[in-house]
């Protein structure tokens, strides 16, 4: 949990400076106070814009996914903190190509309130906006209250699929419909083994024993479902799959994509060990796995742990999922 940084207050601005310096062909820093990342080359005129926003500390989420077939712009807050309504309004303006903008982001109080305020602000610019919230973390509320759930790694599928729909030329209502269908089709669950440190807080987000793990923990260290001794990889994966499959119907012949995601420190080696069980469970359910993603797609800096996301596909979603996209963190050809 050791960090390489300068002044904690500068963590985000220095990160963004480096991000845009390393990838000037992809990213452009904009907004009143440089907290908006937009595509270096904007999408084509008349394309529906897609904008996201949220706290820093989750790379490639959020800013990393600004790119062709993905997001048009993104407002980014301090680590684990929402950007301001003004910054979000700047991002909406940067994303607009004259056909309206979809706000696509995770269900967290601060983000929702500020994006609502941002929507009010851009009404004056005559930019039409819609909203789709990701609320995919099954550990954060029972199915009856599914709309209250936290948004986690399912976001990645929504960015990809909605981004491809916008690139394909759907209008705002169409892109919004596809994004909502994706959000509805995603279920995630996470497990954490060790915390990360928010630079401005200077100490770990939670404490946990050297031999413990927590099931269902949130990406900012929000409490999970249980905490107990560290279990073997296969047992962890089985329980995560139990929880996901209990929450979504996967039937014989269904086509499903899956994301086995490291929260940061957990290495690829261990993701692949877990993937064996994910694959076996989906095969046992009769499902066909489409374009599995294994890697660091939505992180919590140096947190140790993983999340699984299932995204149940229909032909429309599958077409957009497998369509081309291009950003420094994710290329689909």
């Amino acid at each position, binding site marked *: 949990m050791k960090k390489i940084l300068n002044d904690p207050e500068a963590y985000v601005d220095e990160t963004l400076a480096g991000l845009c310096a390393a990838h000037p062909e992809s990213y452009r820093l904009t907004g009143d106070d440089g907290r908006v990342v937009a595509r270096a080359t904007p999408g084509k005129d008349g394309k529906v814009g897609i904008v996201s926003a949220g706290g820093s500390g989750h790379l490639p989420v959020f800013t990393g996914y600004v790119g062709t077939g993905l997001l048009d712009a993104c407002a980014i807050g301090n680590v684990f*903190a*929402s950007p301001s309504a003004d910054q979000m309004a700047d991002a909406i303006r940067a994303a607009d190509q004259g056909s309206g903008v979809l706000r696509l982001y995770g269900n967290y*109080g601060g983000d929702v*309130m500020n994006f609502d305020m941002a929507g009010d602000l851009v009404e004056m610019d005559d930019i039409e906006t819609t909203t789709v919230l990701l609320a995919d973390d099954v550990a954060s509320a029972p199915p009856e209250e599914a709309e*209250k759930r936290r948004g986690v790694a399912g976001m990645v599928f929504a960015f990809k699929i909605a981004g491809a729909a916008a690139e394909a030329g759907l209008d705002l209502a169409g892109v919004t419909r596809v994004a909502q269908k994706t959000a509805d089709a995603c279920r995630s669950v996470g497990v954490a083994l060790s915390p990360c440190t*928010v630079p*401005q807080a200077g100490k770990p987000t939670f404490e946990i024993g050297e031999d413990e793990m927590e099931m269902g923990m949130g990406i*900012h260290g*929000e*409490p999970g479902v249980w905490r107990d001794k560290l279990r073997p990889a296969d047992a962890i994966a089985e329980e995560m799959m139990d929880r996901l499959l209990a929450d979504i119907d996967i039937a014989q012949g269904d086509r499903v994509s899956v994301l086995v995601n490291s929260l940061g420190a957990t290495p690829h080696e261990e993701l692949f060990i877990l993937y064996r069980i994910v694959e076996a469970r989906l095969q046992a359910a009769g499902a066909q796995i489409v374009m599995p993603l294994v890697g660091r797609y939505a992180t919590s800096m140096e947190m140790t742990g993983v999340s699984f996301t299932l995204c149940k596909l229909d032909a429309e979603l599958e077409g957009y999922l497998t369509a081309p996209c291009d950003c420094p963190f994710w290329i689909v050809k």
Partner: protein
Amino acid sequence: MITVADLRSAAFRLKTAMEAEADTLNTADGALGDGDLGITMRSGSRAIAAAAEDLPEDFGMALMGCAQALTKASSSSYGTLLATGLMAAAKQAKGREGIEPGDLSGLLVAARDKMMARGKAELGGKTVLDTLDAIATALDGAQDPAAAAVTAAEDAQEAFRDKRATIGRARIFADKSVGLDDPGMLAMTKIVQAVTGR
């Protein structure tokens, strides 16, 4: 009359208090949430204190200046809600050199209502709204407004301690929240203590 000069010194007291309480608030928020409330209040109150150096003479505009400073510094749920409330109060106080203690209750009601609309939450949900509501009621005709406000905040915090959280991150752990102070209520108690100097 409460003037912009009073607002300014209250802002400085707030900053001192929030520097000292940051860890406590982070810990309270970390029990069921993401543990950032201390950071929010520390950077928010630093920004307000910095803005306080040159606030306009108009009390309403001065409140608006505080709200904008807060918005820039912190956009967590709590920071956004506080800024929303401050703006609502600012609107009412606009064009005046200062406010009378008797105006306080009305300003708080305005803030509370706007915050309810922004956060889409009801009273009774074990949030900062309940503290504000209790203070507004207590201030209505109070002899010693400062004392009344502090007592009302402390009492509300205690009265809700054993209830279940219904809003925000803590809602997910409603059962565990019984017996724990809502971090936003706790923060409001400390804010009121700091700005009143009690």
